[in-house]
């Protein structure tokens, strides 16, 4: 056994960690080999991020040992971990939007000039090093750009570049691909392979099954704070892995969508954004009981379009008809009044109220329907309804009164989905509804979509995941650079056709 030790660059042994009301980690062990990609899998709230935060010195474990390169490691802060050769891409974007790309990348370890006791920043080197790093990683990002001005996927690319730039021997990636397109994910994989070729160990967390089998060498699976074990990726397949994660057979990936398509519910005519480089002249219809998918590449202005329909963005011309009548929608209030709900893509920025409870976060958009005598909120009914929707999606939370910021990323997303389901919208717009959500819960969300459609509701789903787009939609509408390039139906709706329409102007 003594020899085995040298085989691992990192060993986490018998780690325990609890938060008020949850045992987040219960005797968890993890062995990571150098030069390999180690996938860490598990449902939302299984404890993946918590384990990595213990490794990175953000949380202090209650018990257990971390052995890094054969030596016992005790990290009190992220600084200690970084200095010991561990870097991490965090599940939530963690950059400083108002500062430049280069400042973000070298934050906390800027290159310095030294004059005796006085040190000051070497702006020139910072710029050159960033440019060289971007070149090496084949990223087309200007080091001087303001971080907050970049698209989300470019910001994510910067996080990746930053993690790589530490020249660490272990790089942790917590859902790095959740906001990347398939091409960008391919690019990430090239970077990962380059890292492992140089002996770096990569710990990779993702809810996208197909990625795991493309990139991982070893797969560890967690469930409810416990480690089930580690397998070579070659011994697993998707079905086996899903079964390990959820603890039951789950062969079906999509429910059957068998709703009856009825009369026209929503008509959009020649809608054009008030901003010059956004969507132009987009028209489409949505019927009762229909699920309309919107596909396209990042930058196709899909989010901008649905936000405009929801009254979050200004339009310069075009009109929206709800149930055949012209609807003037200038704010989300107007949209909600017309029975439209929107689950936003960016849950940190525009979705959650971090300090409020799960109940409050769920109910906040539908309080109007729970008022007695025009004055008093019916707390008991609110809590019961909020609980019902969250149970349906199997949100994992210690209680309904836990602050939402203490939930795992995927569970926060489930609460948001519950919020809009609770408003009982006639037209539900879902922007990337399953981003960061585990396989089991994805199925729940799909089932709810199918059921809503069966009950005569209409759904618009923006998605970058081709399988879900094709698996759940009656029709798929494709945008490219803000133009509606076509709508596909039935057998026409294939991956090739969607890609063809999505890249029409490239």
């Amino acid at each position, binding site marked *: 056994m003594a020899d085995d030790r040298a085989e691992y660059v990192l060993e986490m042994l018998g780690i325990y960690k609890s938060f008020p009301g949850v045992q987040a980690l219960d005797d968890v062990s993890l062995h990571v080999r150098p030069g390999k990609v180690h996938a860490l899998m598990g449902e939302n709230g299984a404890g993946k991020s918590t384990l990595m935060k213990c490794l990175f010195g953000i949380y202090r474990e209650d018990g257990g040992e971390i052995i890094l390169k054969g030596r016992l490691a005790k990290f009190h802060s*992220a*600084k200690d971990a970084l*200095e010991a050769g561990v870097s*991490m891409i965090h599940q939530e974007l963690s950059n*400083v939007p108002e*500062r430049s790309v280069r400042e973000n990348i070298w934050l*906390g370890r800027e290159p310095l000039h030294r004059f005796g006791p006085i040190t*000051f920043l070497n*702006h020139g080197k910072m710029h050159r090093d960033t440019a060289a790093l971007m070149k090496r990683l084949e990223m087309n990002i200007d080091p001087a750009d303001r971080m907050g001005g970049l698209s989300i996927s470019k910001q994510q690319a910067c996080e990746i570049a930053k993690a790589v730039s530490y020249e660490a021997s272990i790089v942790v990636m917590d859902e790095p691909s959740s906001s990347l397109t398939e091409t960008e994910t391919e690019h990430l994989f090239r970077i990962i392979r380059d890292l492992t070729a140089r002996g770096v160990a990569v710990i990779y967390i993702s809810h996208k099954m197909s990625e795991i089998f493309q990139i991982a060498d070893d797969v560890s699976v967690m469930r409810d704070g416990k480690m089930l074990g580690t397998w070579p990726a070659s011994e697993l397949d998707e079905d086996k892995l899903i079964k390990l994660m959820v603890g039951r057979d789950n062969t079906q990936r999509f429910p059957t969508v068998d709703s009856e398509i009825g009369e026209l519910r929503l008509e959009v005519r020649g809608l054009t954004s008030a901003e010059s480089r956004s969507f132009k002249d987009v028209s489409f219809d949505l019927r009762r009981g229909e699920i309309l998918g919107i596909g396209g590449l990042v930058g196709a202005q899909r989010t901008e379009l649905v936000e405009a329909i929801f009254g979050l963005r200004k339009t310069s011309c075009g009109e929206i008809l709800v149930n055949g009548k012209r609807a003037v929608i200038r704010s989300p209030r107007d949209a909600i009044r017309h029975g439209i709900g929107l689950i936003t893509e960016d849950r940190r920025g525009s979705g959650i109220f971090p300090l409020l409870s799960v109940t409050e976060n769920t109910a906040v958009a539908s309080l109007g329907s729970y008022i007695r005598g025009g004055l008093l909120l019916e707390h008991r009914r609110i809590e019961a309804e909020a609980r019902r929707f969250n149970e349906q999606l199997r949100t994992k939370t210690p209680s309904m009164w836990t602050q939402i910021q203490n939930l795992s990323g995927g569970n926060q997303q489930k609460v948001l989905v519950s919020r809009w389901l609770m408003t009982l919208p006639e037209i539900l717009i879902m922007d990337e509804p399953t981003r960061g959500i585990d396989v089991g819960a994805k199925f729940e969300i799909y089932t709810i979509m199918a059921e809503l459609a069966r009950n005569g509701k209409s759904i618009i789903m923006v998605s970058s995941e081709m399988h879900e787009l094709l698996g759940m939609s009656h029709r798929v509408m494709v945008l490219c650079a803000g133009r509606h390039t076509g709508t596909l139906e039935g057998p026409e709706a294939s991956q090739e056709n969607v890609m063809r329409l999505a890249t029409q102007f490239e």
Partner: protein
Amino acid sequence: MAANAVGALARKKGIAAFLGKNTNLVTFVVLATILGVMTRGRSFEWPSVRNLMIAESVRAFAALGVGMIIITRGIDLSIGYVVCLVASVSASFAQTPDYMAALYPGMDFPIYLPFIAGILTGGLFGFFNGVLVAYGKLPAFIATLGTMSIARGAQLIYTKAAVVGSVKDAYKVLAQGSVGPIPNLALYVVVAAAIVWFLLRHTRRGTNFYAIGGNPVAARVSGINVEKELVVVYTFAGLLYGIAGCLLSGRLGLANALTANGMELDAIAAVTVGGISQAGGVGTVGGMIIGVLTLGIINYGMTYLGVDSYYQLLVKGFIILVAVYFYIRKYSQR
């Protein structure tokens, strides 16, 4: 020709972009011009400019301090009373020995002692604020509200609510003197502003301040010791208030319970007009100084034009609100 037109357009855009980015400068220039026209150019003459410098210098120190704190997403309400306490402490060590009502009658302290005592007092309060905010995790608003009251009490106890007057000439001259036509006070501000500028723009510490204000979580996971940096920023600000208090007692030749009252609001208003966002993570030293000067010409201009002092407050309030309104719009456009 087409290329020419494009070039002109680009240049035009460049100017528009510059003005858009420097709303604070535009506000200042517009107000200064209005004042210049209304006073038929008198406000541009050297004596007026000199008076403005003398009047605003002390406030500039406070603004530099609180400006840095606001960049880290904090706030400091204790400034006015801390500066008041510092002024009283420094004045008490600079009183003429034969003055009957001196706090230490008959004592002739060396000329550097008032400065040391004053600056240490300021630094100590700043340090205390920093510890409360960083390690005590108190919201800055509440923590500094508490120290504000402590400073107030300390000042009244220390001075027994009396005026600390009859300050030595040798002490006064440091604040009241000038080098050629330029008042000493203005020179001190230039030095302090240069140091703060260097710190914010060219040191790792300054970058850390912006990062903490812009996104504290990102700062922490990048290995920055957020608590330590916060203690440093509040302490540094406290030292600046210390200098402000010493200069104020020198300039006035005395200190009493009313000295520097309300200075925190003036300083916060100034840096806000200067473009330091309360949301944290943005702002420059240039902005802070422009903000101070903008409020300065508003005060000065209205006094010059003989506007009733009650109305002055009213007008000042409106101008601040309008300036900030435009800032907020600029940031929310993103």
